[in-house]
């Protein structure tokens, strides 16, 4: 893959230096995004310096809590040699310039922002600094070698120039093919970190989210969706709805019936008053009980080959002992705190969108297609995202498309708002999965045969609109089993996949495959260690002998988290290790189980992520992933009865609350390894570490998620 970036500079319309990069198209994702010719909505740049000495950094990725609003500007600040606090930070909007250097389309996901932009953003800063130095050298008649920068100034002999003073002339210089990057010893921010640049606006209510977009004439819409996926409106009566004061219009759109009103409350009242007859379609046949039985049957047979080694069938008779396990994982809703919303304003030949999205280019293309526009006729504005977790990276562009349909049909500017119930019931979930595993062990308690089948829907199949038809083996279903360091060490193994089809739309959910594969692998390894009478840390050390990063994370958490510590009476510990998104996270969870109720008291976490660009940001993401995983493991579940989702809101789809949040200690491995991610990486190992601690407490293994569905009593 060609990853070279072509650096350009130019003069800002308002005067000043503008540094932008273009990336050659990398794959078919980019080819699809190519239907968007160059955007007309300037500025399409990473960095600009105004003649007024203002410095602006445009973010190719979006801020949804993970902290890149701080980390990306840090990269530029270090190369440009400026105080981070002096930089104006903005989301870049939809533009090919901001395409992901690996994925080829503009996407924030895969815990990839910092490592994927590490070179590009530093180069943006370094290019500007080089041009400013050259300009100062010429202007002062000093040799460029004897010029230097100092916190926003160029010192050239006895002269001292602000960057703004040099910006216009710098913009006229040719851009060198390669610019020197500063030595790591010159870094003020990288590796040391900075406070969040968005903290202050998030403490006084001034931070703007998509939900907060307001302008004169803007109406609010809510949509009645079919109660069953795939359902259609047969007929509806809007008579009563239209009598609600404030309701302006009731419209049928492809996904249901939209009520448009002066404000949210009127729209919601109007929706309640609608009388709709639905044609439910085949989706009514979906029941969680029957689905579980069908998937269990499927997973009991060998699926399509994912990975194999040796002869697993021949190896089982040689095993001293075998264990069999079957795991069931429910559908999950991402439930970001900010319910999904999108504001659309269409004028004659242009459209403007405001929405929190992880996929700005995809949304732009989808909107253009609905409107019969070219993508460049659609401007995408991205406020802060009130959480994403994958839900705002929907290749099907469901909520943006819905809002565009409403605005198109209505002819008025509309802010479409989903309620929490809409968020729970209207799809794009972590899929339902069943794993069936049979393991044969030798007399030393080590696995010699491992047969593993997974049944579940393909996330990539639902992402086909962006990524094309999915391959037969969807890696997002099997990652974490496929490529497992444990399987590497097992001479005979087979991993198989049964890809299922359902009416339920599915999507990546923070840490994707790791949400279930890590649980299966790590609880089974715990079981094998227990059966062998070997300490689970020691047992893993043996299997990680060829995996130094796993070992480093394991050893650090065992040491700093004091694995051998004496626990309070009634407290038990469990551990797990998992690699995802280029980083390895090891977790120790300390729990109690009292009258069947599990409480997680403390979590110790070590991460091997290579260079931690913003160490406290990495820690914050570990804390975040750990608590997210506890919510998922303890409570997360959507169930279906006759095609209808049974959960409604936070009262029956519970999220970890303050009183349930553990004390968390995070340790970062001092590492020279390749840089990995952080945002999602703590999610996979936390849930199995908790389950392993529950086993220590109760002697019961968890095979069905969520944990609250299991009857747990304290050990006798």
């Amino acid at each position, binding site marked *: 893959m060609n990853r070279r970036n072509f650096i350009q500079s130019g003069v800002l319309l308002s005067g000043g230096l503008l540094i932008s990069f273009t990336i050659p198209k990398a794959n078919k994702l980019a080819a699809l995004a190519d239907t968007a010719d160059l955007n007309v909505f300037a500025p399409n740049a990473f960095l600009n310096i105004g003649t007024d000495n203002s410095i602006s950094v445009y973010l190719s990725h979006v801020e*949804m809590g993970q902290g890149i609003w701080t980390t990306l500007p840090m990269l530029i600040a270090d190369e440009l040699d400026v105080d981070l606090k002096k930089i104006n930070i903005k989301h870049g909007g939809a533009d090919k310039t901001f395409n992901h250097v690996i994925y080829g389309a503009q996407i924030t996901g895969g815990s990839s922002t910092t490592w994927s932009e590490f070179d590009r953003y530093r180069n943006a800063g370094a290019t500007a600094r080089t041009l400013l130095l050259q300009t100062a050298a010429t202007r002062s008649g000093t040799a460029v070698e004897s010029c230097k920068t100092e916190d926003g100034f160029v010192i050239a002999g006895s002269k001292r120039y602000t960057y703004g003073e040099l910006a216009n002339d710098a913009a006229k210089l040719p851009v060198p093919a390669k610019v020197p990057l500063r030595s790591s010893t010159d870094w003020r921010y990288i590796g040391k970190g900075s406070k969040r640049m968005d903290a202050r606006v998030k403490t006084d209510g001034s931070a703007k989210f998509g939900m907060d977009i*307001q302008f004169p004439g803007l109406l609010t819409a809510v949509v009645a969706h079919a109660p069953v996926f795939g359902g259609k409106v047969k007929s509806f009566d809007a008579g009563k709805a239209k009598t609600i004061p404030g309701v302006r219009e009731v419209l049928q759109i492809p996904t249901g019936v939209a009520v448009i009103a002066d404000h949210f*409350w009127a729209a919601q009242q109007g929706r309640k008053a609608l009388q709709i007859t639905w044609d439910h379609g085949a989706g009514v046949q979906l029941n969680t009980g029957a689905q579980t039985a069908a998937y269990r049957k499927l997973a009991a047979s060998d699926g399509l080959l994912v990975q194999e080694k040796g002869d697993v069938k021949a190896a089982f008779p040689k095993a001293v002992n075998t264990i069999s396990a079957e795991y069931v994982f429910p559908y999950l809703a991402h439930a*970001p*705190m900010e319910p999904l919303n999108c504001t659309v304003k269409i004028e004659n030949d242009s459209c403007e969108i405001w929405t929190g999205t992880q996929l700005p280019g995809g949304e732009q293309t989808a909107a253009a297609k609905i409107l019969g526009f070219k993508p460049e006729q659609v401007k995408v504005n991205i406020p802060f995202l*009130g959480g994403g977790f994958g839900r705002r990276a929907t290749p099907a562009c469901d909520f943006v498309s819905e809002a565009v349909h409403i605005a198109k049909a209505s002819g008025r500017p509309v802010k479409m708002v989903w309620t*929490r119930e809409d968020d729970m019931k209207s799809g794009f979930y972590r899929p339902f999965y069943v794993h069936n595993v049979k393991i044969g062990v030798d007399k030393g308690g080590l696995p010699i045969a491992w047969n593993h089948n997974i049944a579940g829907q393909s996330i990539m199949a639902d992402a086909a609109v962006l990524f094309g038809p999915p391959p037969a083996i969807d890696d997002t279903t099997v990652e974490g089993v496929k490529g497992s360091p444990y399987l590497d060490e097992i001479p005979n193994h087979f991993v198989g996949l049964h890809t299922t089809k359902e009416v339920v739309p599915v999507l990546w959910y923070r840490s994707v495959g790791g949400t279930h594969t890590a649980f299966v692998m790590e609880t089974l390894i715990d079981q094998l260690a227990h059966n062998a009478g070997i300490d689970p840390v020691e047992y893993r050390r043996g299997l990680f002998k060829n995996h130094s990063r796993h070992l480093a994370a394991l050893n650090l958490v065992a040491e700093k988290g004091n694995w051998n510590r004496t626990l309070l009476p009634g407290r038990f510990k469990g551990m797990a290790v998992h690699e995802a998104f280029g980083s390895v996270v090891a977790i120790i969870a300390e729990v109690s189980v009292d009258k069947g109720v599990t409480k997680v008291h403390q979590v110790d976490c070590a991460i091997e992520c290579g260079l931690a660009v913003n160490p406290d940001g990495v820690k914050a993401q570990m804390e975040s992933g750990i608590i997210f995983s506890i919510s998922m493991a303890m409570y997360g579940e959507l169930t279906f009865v006759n095609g209808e989702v049974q959960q409604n809101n*936070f009262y029956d789809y519970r999220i970890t609350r303050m009183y349930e*949040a553990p004390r968390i200690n995070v340790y970062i491995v001092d590492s020279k390894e390749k840089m990995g991610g952080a945002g999602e990486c703590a999610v996979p190992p936390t849930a199995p570490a908790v389950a392993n601690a529950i086993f220590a407490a109760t002697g019961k293994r968890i095979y069905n998620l969520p944990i609250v569905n299991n009857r747990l009593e304290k050990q006798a």
Partner: protein
Amino acid sequence: MIAITINGKQQEVAADPDMPLLWVIRDLLGLTGTKFGCGVAQCGACTVHLNGEAVRSCVTKVSRAAGQRVTTIEGLSKLNDHPLQIAWAEFDVPQCGYCQSGQLMSAAVLLRENPNPTDQDIDDAMSGNICRCGTYPRIRSAIHKAAELQREGAKS
């Protein structure tokens, strides 16, 4: 017309008396710091002060606020310098930030009523506010810090 004092300013709104205070604040008065998260008093994102008490504005009818004093996050301090706001920034509490207005408004009542809250007091006061990003450990640290700042402020 319903008269409400919002952040010290008298306002008259033409609203159905049953309309939730949340939507009056956001959609009629244009103060967007107060957030919609669940609509059923489960998540606390919409927390405001009604005569100094923390209420869930998504289930509080505007008629209940008639002639009363309402404080939103925009009115918590003039310069973003309430001890909680200072501590929130110091501990880098916010992640996505969407729930933080509600967290701060709940914490502000706790700190006024209980200048030296224990961890248990924080659990009791703050468990009605959901944070999907899991910022709870930092919220806890920041409340302790704000209590300290408040005590120091009282001394000087």
